[in-house]
């Protein structure tokens, strides 16, 4: 068991000279940036004001979180952005302070955030920087449980899966008070590595911004399984670059809740030949809920023999529901087969009538149709830990199904 994190006093960036200089540059860059607005294409459907609500600014936690419940298998707890307890055999966990200079230099280069306000802010203000390394195949997924309750909370995870290794991580989020979690996970998959990544956000009812940046080496595979629900605001981002013959399968469900807004942004880049992407995202939007998905698949000139598909579907369940989708293809190579599809609609009246006419009560009939709508994505959820959470949220609450 790795107990290095049972008490973690020194998180965030260790102040070696090179890191300090880099950090200062980032702080300067942050000072020159402003939060994105709807004029920015990747933020045009975002309801960001929730993140900057005054009650979130500079407030400290004035109540204790419940004691971490020991989970089955392997796990880490993050409270207010800092790891507070962990249990794992397969993964090696190291805070930034314990990394050698070569590893730090490598990651500083990998973490270049560009001009993205939230990425830069996360790097500048990170509560904790933790490197997770997997050298071999891990049978049980590593469960990462985040709890936030006050102010701005900004964990930063670095994940390295060695060539040929296989593993899974499942991130879950829970909020306990007015707060904005601006977290980031950087996944680095070596040649032939495989990672299944679950992201479950249904208990994060405050503002949540979560960015996943993944770099897939040759023949690496990343399988994302995400279930997003909130009564607050959440933004989930995936920025994935695929190496030669790498594969991305990204499956997600937005399970809207009244007054909640979920905003998903996908940037997928094929920079080498033979890579494959398969995205399928489905959203259920009840009254007064909002769901947006912006997805861009970019095929660079070197990305020949690409196979890429993106399917984004939404069901609007009641008046006051709103959905926006923007599935983009940007293609600079000719030997490709790329496609995308999107639908926005309602439950099929005829199907509903068919079921009701066979004696199935309307509420049940609606639920059956909703289950059928979600089934193609749910079938791709293989992680028991994700499915357990998903089934705890389904069927829909009555107000959403009505």
């Amino acid at each position, binding site marked *: 068991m790795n107990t290095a994190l049972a008490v973690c006093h020194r998180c965030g960036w260790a102040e070696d000279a090179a890191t300090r200089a880099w950090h200062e540059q980032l702080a300067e860059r942050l000072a020159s940036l402003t939060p994105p607005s709807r004029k920015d294409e990747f933020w045009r459907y975002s309801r960001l004001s929730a993140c900057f609500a005054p009650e979130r600014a500079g407030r400290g936690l004035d109540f204790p979180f419940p004691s971490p419940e020991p989970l089955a298998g392997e796990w880490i707890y993050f409270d207010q952005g800092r790891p507070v307890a962990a249990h794992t055999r397969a993964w090696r966990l190291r805070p930034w302070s314990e990394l050698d200079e070569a590893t730090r230099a490598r990651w500083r280069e990998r973490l270049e955030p560009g001009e993205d306000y939230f990425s830069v802010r996360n790097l500048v203000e990170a509560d904790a920087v933790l490197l997770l390394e997997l050298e071999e195949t891990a049978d049980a997924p590593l469960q990462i449980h985040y709890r936030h309750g006050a102010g701005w909370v900004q964990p930063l995870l670095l994940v390295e899966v060695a060539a040929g290794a296989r593993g899974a991580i499942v991130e879950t989020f829970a909020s306990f008070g007015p707060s904005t979690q601006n977290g980031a996970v950087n996944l680095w998959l070596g040649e032939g590595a495989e990672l299944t990544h679950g992201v479950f956000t249904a208990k994060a009812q405050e503002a949540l911004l979560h960015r996943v940046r993944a770099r897939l080496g040759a023949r690496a595979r990343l399988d994302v399984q995400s279930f997003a629900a909130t009564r607050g605001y959440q933004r989930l981002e995936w920025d994935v670059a695929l190496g030669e013959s790498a594969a991305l399968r990204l499956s997600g469900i937005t399970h809207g809740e009244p007054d909640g807004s979920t905003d998903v942004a996908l940037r997928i880049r094929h920079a080498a030949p033979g890579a494959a992407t398969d995205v399928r995202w489905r959203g259920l939007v009840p009254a007064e809920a909002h769901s947006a998905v912006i997805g861009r698949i970019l095929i660079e000139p070197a990305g*020949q023999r690409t196979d890429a598909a993106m399917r984004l579907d939404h069901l609007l369940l009641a*008046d006051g529901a709103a959905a926006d989708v*923007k*599935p*983009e293809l940007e293609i600079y190579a000719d030997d490709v*087969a*790329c*496609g*995308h599809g999107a639908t*926005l609609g309602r439950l099929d009246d005829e199907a509903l009538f068919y079921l009701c006419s066979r004696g199935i009560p309307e509420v049940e009939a609606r639920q059956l149709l909703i289950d059928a709508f979600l089934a193609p994505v749910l079938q791709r959820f293989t992680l028991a830990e994700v499915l357990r959470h998903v089934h705890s949220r389904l069927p829909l609450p009555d107000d959403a199904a009505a």
Partner: protein
Amino acid sequence: MSTTELDAALSQAYEAGFVTDIETETLPPGLDEQVIEYISAKKNEPEFLRQWRLDAFRRWQTMKEPHWAHVRYEPIDYQGLIYYAAPKRRSETEIDPKLLETYEKLGVPVHERAALAGVAVDAVFDSVSVLTTFKDKLSEAGVIFCPISEAVQKYPELVQKYLGSVVPPGDNFFAALNSAVFSDGSFVYIPKGVRCPLELSTYFRINTARTGQFERTLIIADEGSYVSYLEGCTAPMRDEHQLHAAVVELIALEGAEIRYSTVQNWYPGDEEGRGGVYNFVTKRGLCAGRGAKISWTQVETGSAITWKYPSVILKGDDSVGEFYSVALTRGRQQADTGTKMIHLGRNTRSTIVSKGIAAGHSQNAYRGLVRINPGASGARNYTQCDSLLIGPHCGAHTFPYIESRNPRAIVEHEASTSRVSEEQLFYCRQRGIDPERAVALIVGGFCKDVFQKLPLEFAVEAGKLLEVSLEGSVG
């Protein structure tokens, strides 16, 4: 097929690239309020229009040129452009034979006896309309078809009522510029219940160097009427870029139908991207009444840069919007084109079929918006946008925006991108069809859905245009 063979095959001559040597009255380059006053005075416009232009100009001065489109170009020197150029007339009635020759050379039926006599033509040369055919026959049916400068004189109430009602002067940077300096264009009014007896057509020609063309087209289809309108355009080959910033406004009242077809063949520039027309156009239709229908069909093969989104605002209940487009880019051409369908009324329907073909070093983007507003119960949209890539150096992109605020609406969108399939080519060649013909056949099949929507004469022309553009694309 090798890249070299492909590039060579795609550098076909631009047949409409000649210059007409004609005496022209031009303003010196530059734009200020005096230029606008001059244009307005030249056309003897009423005070409301003069003021409208000046307001638009003042608005334009406060606006910034947008750069969000997926196109790259050198900054435009707006003070280096000529805003008014018109061929000198010998008399009020006589038209310079060189002008007629020009249009005949371009295959435009400017003589009423011509083979394509089923089409009435308004010919716009640089900044002015030089002739309009079949006016008498049309007026018998009560149809008004004339240059907009003439409509301002004869039907000022109609112009004042509808001008800027769909594309307001401050709508966007280029619409504001057009509103300030537009010099001519077509005006069409179809009275209640009238089915226009002829296809109407406007042919736009830029001739004078350093000239921008800013025409304005306004079509009003009154209740229960029908009109089919065709538009064509060409320009000479020059090393400089020329700006074409037009505005087209369509208004379809209750039960009326407007079909608007464009075959755009502006000079696309040479293989290195020198010269060519910047085609920055605002086209928008309003289905104002119940059951109105507006259908845009476009075949875009020309222009160095095409940046336009013919749109429909579906305000009337049960109204219908359609957009069928083929956009072919080759050489260094760039296109960012598509449509917007704004559903406001109940049971409104829209269909979008877009085919993009990219060859050479060109960039071809579809950008479209489908918006369902809260009141648009029962609305339906179907969108299909497909891209075909020919050669390894081009790009094909799709940027659809889909927004719904009504749970009783259905929106479906699908898109695909691929290259001309080896299997299809093999199939054709196996049956003795030479490779060049096979590509033409495959591309023709790819575009068939759109060509079927064009009026017959245009469908033939569009098909030929595409064949010429792609001739020899397989070695």
